[in-house]
């Protein structure tokens, strides 16, 4: 079977009912796509199928035939978004991050906070409490922060990096305008 993977044509001999998730990770060597729950709940396995986010743990690879598949390795043109996840605390352990980035990359530019939340409701994160993620999306669009940034003082003791963080954050925010 053939499909386009991150802009390049691929041809594979695979059993049709294998999960797209497994074929991407095991046959294509693209391990950026994660398995969280294997039940469609968490969105860690999100890829874009012809531009639309889907859970690759629920897709038989045969249904990808003739489509354009985009994984986190192939996400292009969203540097600001990726950068904001770094500077705004959008990622902690990182297992949910590829899925969030792909889902967020498809949100309309003018989406309100409510629309951003709706658009990302199929992605779960156990670390950030979501505030950092919504803030990352907002900052990447050059908009106001969706949620107040955590007070550096409160975190300074726990993580030494916290002291330098606010500066990095505002620099990134300025760049993205």
């Amino acid at each position: 079977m053939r499909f386009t993977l991150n802009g390049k044509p691929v041809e594979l001999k695979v059993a049709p009912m294998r999960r797209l998730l497994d074929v991407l990770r095991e046959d294509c060597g693209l391990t950026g796509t994660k398995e969280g729950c294997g039940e469609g709940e968490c969105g860690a396995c999100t890829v874009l199928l012809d531009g639309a986010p889907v859970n690759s743990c629920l897709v038989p690879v045969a249904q990808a035939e003739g489509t354009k598949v985009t994984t986190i390795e192939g996400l292009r043109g969203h540097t600001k978004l990726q950068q904001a996840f770094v500077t705004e605390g959008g990622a902690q352990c990182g297992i949910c991050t590829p899925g969030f980035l792909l889902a967020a990359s498809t949100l309309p530019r003018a989406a309100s906070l409510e629309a951003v939340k709706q658009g990302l409701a199929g992605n779960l994160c156990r670390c950030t409490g979501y505030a950092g993620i919504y803030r990352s999306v907002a900052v990447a669009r050059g908009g106001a922060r969706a949620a107040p940034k955590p007070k550096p003082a409160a975190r300074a003791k726990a993580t030494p990096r916290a002291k330098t963080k606010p500066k990095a954050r505002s620099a990134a925010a300025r760049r993205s305008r």
Partner: protein
Amino acid sequence: MKTAFSTLALLRPERPDEALALLRDGPLTPIAGGTDLYVALNAGLCPSRRFVDLSRLKAWRGIAATKDGGLRIGALTTFAQIRDDKRVARALPALCAAAREIGGVQIQNRATVGGNLANASPAADSAPVLLAADAELELASTAGVRRVPLGEFFVAYRHTALRADELIQAVLIPPQPGPSFFRKVGTRAANAISKVVFAGVRAARPRIALGSVGPVPLRAKRAEAALAAGADLESAVDALQQDIAPIDDLRSTAEYRRFVAAGLLRQFWQQTGGRRPAPSRRR
């Protein structure tokens, strides 16, 4: 244990007649968006080994206006398509509202209306809306197409009127006599299976349907009759309690479901009461 996916067979017809012929010679399990089937396969709970993929049947995907002023929605139409469709928003806004709350976008992009109904979960969110809309299904086999009112489709817990050689081809929605209402109560909008799902169409003979309050999605016939006869709202709420038979399960309790169902009936009646229901266009 997870199913061994490499051992499963998949046939991929391009046209409905090919799919129906394959099914006649079955046994085969149809797969549309896979959002229910793959959850079962991932959990090792689907015994089928041979599948037929419906995703290439383009003729069965899409929304069209019918001559009588209603809508025909192909079984393979996704909830993302329904959610964004202007005709659905005009004809039956409650269906758009339901589509918006079926899983997150990843699910909406894949989940089909045919799969939602065929799966016959008592919690299927499109079912109460389509029941309240008096929708009918087109069931196709090599023998032809039969039309079945949705109210006769859900036979018993997870059992439908669909024969093993049949597929749902389309959902037919007649013109609606008044405003529609949808409300789902769960722990969270996306990804949460409903504790109670309620849909209604306001008219001289109001139509009310609920999910997750019995073995199948159901019409609240007694409550409807009470309201049609001009009874006051609280009498209809009492009647509703006889229409439903909720149970305690891991998502909620029977008592809470009865309480919520009552609240939703009041909300439906109050929110749709402002305007006089539009006169039915048929008749």
